[in-house]
């Protein structure tokens, strides 16, 4: 073989990893959203079911394995993204004095790195608030059917009752939406999963996903805040 680079090192390989991790993170968003949708509800039943769900997600062995894959994906997606962005910046050392990029490309597609960094910062804040607290923090507990359960629900609700925290959420979800607006179909293009017959479907689903999923994520804190 000519290059010996195969699936590591070449520009295309780096893009494959971006696409694959991105698509994996997209599937995770669906699962995460499905759980969060419970927060639209109110009352003790909702609290109990949400907390049971949280316990399941943090303790069930299969989920645990998947979660490590998830952390790895986030890290790989972020690091690979930073490497790509640095290479891209180096590929044009001298910038245009006048550049009319809006004439030929979408804003989101040109700002994936920025949107990605906002999303990453959000993930860090988010994980500190909930994931870290759940695993290592002092989350109050109570008993359901003789079992000690961490009350993540009350922490969540308490968090979203703060305006600044809700605002961070809403802004971050907007960034995620734009990131997905381009990223979803871009991943398919990168993998070469392209066909004139199916491309419109991929694009349509991608854009719908990019609007609906972040919107629902953002509505939860808003609804709780306004409650």
């Amino acid at each position: 073989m000519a290059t010996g680079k195969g699936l590591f090192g070449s520009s295309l390989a780096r893009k494959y990893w971006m696409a694959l991790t991105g698509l994996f993170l997209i599937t995770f968003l669906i699962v995460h959203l499905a759980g969060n949708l419970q927060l639209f509800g109110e009352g003790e039943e909702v609290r109990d079911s949400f907390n049971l769900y949280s316990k399941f997600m943090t303790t069930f062995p299969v989920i645990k394995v998947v979660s490590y894959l998830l952390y790895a994906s986030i890290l790989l997606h972020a690091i690979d993204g930073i490497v790509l962005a640095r290479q891209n910046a180096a590929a044009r050392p001298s910038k245009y004095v006048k550049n009319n990029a809006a004439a030929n490309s979408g804003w989101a597609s040109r700002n994936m790195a920025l949107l990605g960094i906002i999303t990453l910062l959000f993930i860090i804040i988010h994980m500190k608030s909930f994931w870290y607290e759940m695993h290592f923090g002092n989350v109050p507990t109570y008993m359901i059917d003789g079992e000690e359960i961490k009350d993540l629900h009350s922490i969540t609700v308490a968090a979203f009752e703060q305006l600044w925290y809700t605002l961070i959420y809403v802004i971050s979800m907007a960034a995620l939406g734009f990131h997905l607006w381009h990223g979803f179909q871009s991943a398919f293009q990168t993998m070469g999963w392209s066909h004139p017959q199916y491309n419109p479907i991929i694009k349509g689903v991608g854009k719908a996903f990019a609007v609906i999923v972040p919107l629902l994520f953002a509505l939860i804190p808003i609804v709780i805040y306004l409650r």
Partner: protein
Amino acid sequence: MNLTLKVWRQDGPNDKGRMETFKVNDVSEHMSFLEMMDVLNEQIINDGGDPIAFDHDCREGICGMCSMYINGEAHGPGRGVTTCQLHMREFNDGDTIYIEPWRAKAFPVVKDLMVDRSAFDRVIQAGGYVSVNTSGNTQDANAIPIEKENADAAFDAATCIGCGACVATCKNSSAMLFVSAKVSQFSLLPQGEPEAADRVLKMVNQMDLEGFGNCTNTGACEVECPKGISLENIARMNREYLKASLTK
């Protein structure tokens, strides 16, 4: 019409470069952009100055030599045209027009608006051919029928003129559209099949070595390409490279 031109001047690859302002008067709307540049250069020569260096040759949109970034777009505001096919009727009296060279690490400036695109030649040399001797003792041209759809798609990819507008336009200076057009042309034809895997690996490797950026799929290259080379080619190359990487 009367125009103000802001033109990039750079003495050589190591010069920092700067914008210079010129006035050109009585420009006819029927002129091509390069003819307007001819008028400007004539004016500069008559004033005892150093004329602006720019690449151009066929002036009918096929040689791929002209290469100006005009008002923030490769080959200017028109669609499906090279700079030599851009006419002054696209502009208005009193306009200020910015003219810059293609900017990319892989395309160093030779002088002013002229850049060195030999990186493209080296990518082709890495594998953009069918390894057949030129003896003429090949089989009859009609021995292998080729599905019309594939032959047409191969032709569409092969119409790339190698001007570099894709690289100039891409926010990452990526050469994916150029490279994928050549990879696609051969991967769609039975003649190119035996070397397909090797070809895509070698050409992508060379593309990376030349210092082009990575593809973000913004699609800007397709929009600005004077020949309308499709993004489908990039998807096809991604597919071909993946296949080759997994099997070679």
